[in-house]
């Protein structure tokens, strides 16, 4: 292994133009595998979801999952691709124990979808069009556990253990055309593309596309060419870059590494590389030429897929609004900035806020609670916002109670606490915890009188016209009522009793 001195990012970009190619694998959320009826449910015990077909036993025959094909077409259409009139599966032959058949059933020169694009929006609002080469259907591999080496690495392992539950789960591989012209924004474009693709896949309902669960994985191809050149340089392929942040880091690292090799007179080896989450570096994997002898040929056990045009058009009609278009529409409806919308998206709050508004809350209140109190709670507990045990309807109810003056923000936070603790619906929590805001004059009157008596000096100032000093008395009343007084009404009562105009 060679240790490479990196060239600074700025220096690299001063001399070279980066060219990227992104390959994203999406595990579909179908109930069964691509070519057999085995369940795809997560968390099953090892090798409990296999059959003769996905184990590659002699005599078994695959049959295509209709839902897998439908999902592939939907993805293709959402990426503005053409959908093949007729296409075949192919065997990609390789000898590795993660595939018991010794080949992966994939598609070769006849992908189901091709020639599309995805517009991605960068942080500053700029739209960058990423062209799509193809999206094809294939299957996932089994899961290997390497035993006997250091920290589960394949290097130095004495042997490996295979669980084939994942072998045969439908995958869609989405490949971009070479992405040029991104310049210094290449890492940002790569990240934005994967993020947008993830949103798109989710909006189609074909996969949850959770990168941390391996449901979406990205390979980053990168090469550099001298500025002004028209021939691409030799590329490296960094495999399994499995978070948005890692996509950005891996791209950046490879730009600096390639620049270092090229400026010192070296040549880039066409190889696969491994990305390391801990320090953001990549290291050499296998040399590509040796591994690429896949001897593809048409899969004889599966007949061609020829999606009827009527079916394709029906699926096209059923496509949801594209995520970027929807986000921009909601952003305008909610009246928030590009930056705030990005934060809402990053927090996974777009759908939740929209549902809360649909349940009757105004947009400011819906955003405030999800992005404030609830985001804080989710963050503390290390769970997704959507995983908190509170529904948009409940948030809308609490917002309504604040809007009609039954609760103030402080009490509302206590209601949230109760709902999250499983104490019931917001109204029940208000009831059980006795959190109604006190705005009844007779109940407040005593507390106000006491506060005035205890703070005579302040009361005099207010009588003398310093209305702003009333805040201190309001505070005293709030404290005495443990925050349950209606602060606005308290202020009115204080000024009334002291004979001052508010």
């Amino acid at each position, binding site marked *: 292994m060679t240790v490479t001195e990196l060239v600074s990012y700025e220096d690299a970009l001063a001399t070279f133009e980066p060219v990227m190619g992104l390959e994203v694998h999406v595990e579909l959320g179908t109930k069964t595998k691509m070519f057999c009826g085995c369940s795809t449910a997560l968390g099953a015990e090892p090798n409990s979801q296999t059959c003769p077909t996905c184990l590659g036993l002699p005599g078994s025959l695959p049959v295509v999952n209709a839902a897998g094909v439908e999902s592939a077409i939907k993805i293709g259409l959402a990426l503005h691709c053409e959908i093949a009139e007729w296409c075949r599966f192919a065997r990609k032959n390789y*000898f590795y124990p993660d595939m018991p058949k010794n080949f992966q059933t994939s598609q070769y020169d006849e992908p189901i979808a091709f020639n599309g694009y995805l517009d991605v929006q960068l942080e500053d609002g700029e739209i960058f069009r990423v062209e799509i080469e193809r999206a094809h259907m294939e299957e996932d591999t089994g899961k*290997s556990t390497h035993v006997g080496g250091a920290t589960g690495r394949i290097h130095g392992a004495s042997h*490996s253990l295979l669980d*084939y539950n994942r072998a045969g789960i439908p995958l869609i591989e989405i490949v971009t055309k070479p992405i040029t012209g991104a310049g210094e924004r290449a890492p940002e474009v790569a990240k934005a593309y994967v993020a947008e693709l993830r949103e798109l896949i989710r909006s189609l309902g074909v996969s949850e596309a959770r990168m941390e669960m391996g449901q979406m994985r990205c390979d980053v191809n990168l090469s550099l060419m001298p500025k002004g050149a028209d021939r691409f340089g030799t590329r490296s392929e960094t495999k399994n870059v499995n978070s948005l942040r890692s996509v950005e880091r891996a791209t950046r690292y490879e730009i600096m590494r390639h620049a270092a090799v090229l400026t010192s007179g070296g040549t880039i080896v066409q190889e696969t590389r491994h990305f390391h989450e801990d320090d953001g570096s990549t290291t050499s994997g296998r040399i590509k030429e040796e591994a690429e002898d896949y001897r593809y040929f048409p899969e004889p056990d599966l007949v061609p897929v020829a999606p009827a045009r009527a079916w394709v058009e029906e699926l096209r009609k059923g496509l949801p609004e594209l995520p970027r278009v929807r986000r921009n529409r909601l952003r305008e409806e909610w009246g928030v900035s590009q930056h705030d919308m990005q934060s809402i998206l990053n927090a996974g709050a777009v759908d939740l806020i929209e549902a809360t508004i649909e349940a009757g809350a105004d947009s400011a209140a819906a955003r405030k609670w999800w992005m404030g109190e609830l985001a804080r709670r989710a963050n503390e507990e290390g769970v997704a916002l959507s995983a908190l045990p509170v529904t948009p309807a409940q948030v809308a109810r609490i917002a309504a109670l604040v809007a009609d003056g039954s609760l103030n923000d402080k009490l509302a936070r206590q209601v949230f606490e109760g709902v999250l603790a499983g104490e019931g619906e917001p109204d029940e929590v208000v009831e059980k915890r006795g959190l109604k805001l006190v705005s009844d004059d007779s109940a407040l009157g005593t507390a106000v009188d006491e506060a005035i008596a205890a703070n005579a000096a302040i009361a005099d100032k207010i009588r003398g016209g310093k209305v702003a000093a009333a805040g201190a008395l309001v505070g005293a009343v709030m404290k005495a009522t443990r925050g349950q007084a209606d602060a606005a009404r308290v202020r009115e009562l204080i000024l009334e009793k002291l004979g001052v105009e508010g």
Partner: protein
Amino acid sequence: MPGITREEVAHLARLSRLELKAEELDHFAEQLDVIIGAVARVSDVAAEDVPPTSHPLPLTNVMRPDEVRPSLTPQEALSGAPAQEQQRFKVPQILGED
């Protein structure tokens, strides 16, 4: 004449993880050459109007609904495995030390 070389047979053998002796390489190169030659004659017969065929039946779109069917039990799945550990298929070292 298509012609298949000894080196190509050695390459294919390596990809297929087959250990072939020197005389076997010569032997198979000769045999494969004959087979490829025979298959090539099909191309002589098939004119422009005959499309390449990968499937003998005029069928498309054979699909099944996305419905779960029973799997094998882990014991059944592993019953043919030469070795197993932790209810998983046990395979020899994949990469050497280098």
